[in-house]
């Protein structure tokens, strides 16, 4: 009896190991099956030195100044955009924009306290004062303007398609009929694909995260991944030899920096920081060192001050 029990336990353990090994298989390739360790963070190399700032009439700024630190909401799962690598280092286009703004407000980027705020909780985090500002693929919409204020846009994204490098059949949104299309569960891009009937409902694949979609794309289980081109470029930049962005955006998403609703002075100050980076080439350097590695170019957007 004793022998049998231990044999069962051993066999069970072996099977469990096999099971968990299989379950994990999908994840590492999401980073980049190109072999190179593209998971580790690399920054664009732009140095942000704190400016001497003074923003009269901004309660948020007063709080930042007296604390000597700034609380910034970001994302952590978007390579080259808003990302945290295995060693805990953060990098990406949005992260560097956040660092640039912090420096413009007189705070050394090393003093930033990051919090990862999921999309659904952004408004409440800003309203509740959990964060001073938010930089993370935050589209400016009229509905959101009721709850928060936006500086920017600092980037104009649009829904696009990520495909394997050798893909020739998919060239734009009207060529994905009959193709398996993947995106994050319930995301606006996939709701758009469904509502506009761009592909059949049975060909729509949804996972919790984009990296699962990218892994399925590389495994040829899906044919394309769709969402904002900024996010797609970040994945393509991780593995430019295996994936490319089609480059025919079919929506407009203006990314802004989310700020407390009534802090007009702070909004003006952040807009000035962005404007300066557009004209002095800082924006371009940040872009080229992050999303630009995907091979797609971009121009600084026009600010919308309101």
């Amino acid at each position: 009896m004793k022998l049998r029990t231990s044999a069962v336990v051993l066999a069970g353990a072996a099977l469990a190991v096999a099971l968990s090994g299989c379950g994990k298989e999908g994840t590492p390739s999401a980073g980049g099956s190109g072999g190179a360790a593209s998971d580790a963070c690399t920054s664009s190399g732009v140095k942000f030195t704190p400016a001497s700032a003074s923003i009269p009439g901004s309660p948020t700024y007063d709080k930042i100044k007296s604390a000597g630190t700034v609380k910034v909401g970001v994302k952590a799962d978007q390579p080259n955009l808003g990302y945290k690598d295995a060693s805990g280092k953060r990098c990406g286009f949005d992260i560097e924009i956040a660092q640039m703004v912090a420096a413009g407000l007189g705070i050394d980027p090393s003093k930033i306290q990051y919090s990862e705020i999921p999309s659904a909780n952004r408004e409440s985090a800003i309203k509740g004062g959990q964060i001073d500002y938010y930089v993370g693929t935050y589209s400016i919409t009229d509905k959101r303007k009721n709850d928060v204020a936006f500086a920017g846009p600092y980037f104009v994204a649009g829904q696009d398609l990520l495909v394997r490098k050798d893909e020739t059949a998919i060239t734009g949104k009207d060529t994905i009929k009959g193709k398996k299309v993947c995106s994050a569960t319930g995301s606006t891009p996939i709701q758009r694909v469904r509502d506009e009937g761009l592909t059949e409902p049975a060909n729509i694949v949804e996972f919790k995260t984009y990296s699962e979609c990218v892994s399925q794309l590389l495994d040829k289980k899906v044919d394309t991944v769709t969402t904002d081109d900024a996010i797609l470029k970040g994945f393509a930049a991780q593995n430019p030899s295996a994936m490319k962005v089609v480059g025919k955006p079919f929506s407009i998403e203006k990314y802004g920096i989310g700020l407390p609703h009534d802090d007009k002075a702070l909004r003006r100050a952040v807009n000035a920081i962005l404007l300066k980076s557009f004209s002095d080439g800082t924006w371009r350097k940040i872009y080229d060192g992050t999303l630009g590695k995907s091979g797609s170019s971009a121009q600084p957007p026009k600010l919308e001050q309101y």
Partner: protein
Amino acid sequence: MSEFVSVLTDNADLFVQFFRTTIELFLIGGVGALILGTVLGALRVSPVPAMRAFGTLYVNTVRNTPLTLVLVFFGFAAPKLGIPLDYFPAACIGLILYTAAFVCESVRSGINTVSAGQAEAARAIGMPFGQVFGEVVLPQALRASVPPLVSVLIALLKNTTVATAVNVQQAGSLPDYLSERGANQLFTNIWIAIIFVLLVAPLALLQRSAERHAAVAA
């Protein structure tokens, strides 16, 4: 309050569509798990050592594996191993195999309430194992199994939400969808909870009537 109601009314299409999938997963998973679980329960008390060992191995392996892992195995790993499985069948198989382990243990606990004398008497009059199990032990065992079985089924109903991990969109995907539509997250989740409570209610009633039906005069 009106916002609370409008979260449901404005998104009624999604609520209906996704809860329908939840119920489909529950019905398929429930029926499959009850059948497989009863068979496994029979294996665990069978006179053949190899069958008993298999039953024990199955229950202890599957019951101790997280459900997400089971579903992800059938959703992602099985196709890689050359078993072509679409996502919905994969989710059903995962739920059936996982829940069957718990059904098996509920059935076995019921079997243990039937006194050994019953089986011995049945064997004494020459019944083979199939008959001893199916006509003497199981009917008495199921009576004692009803409460734990209903608990297992209720757990299954809620476990269906894990299927979001393998591209099966059901009630568990509603928060993702509604947050993108700008609906209040708290209200969304309260509505989902209310509907789950409503779905569980018939199961509780079923339990009560099954218990009454199977009751024996003490």
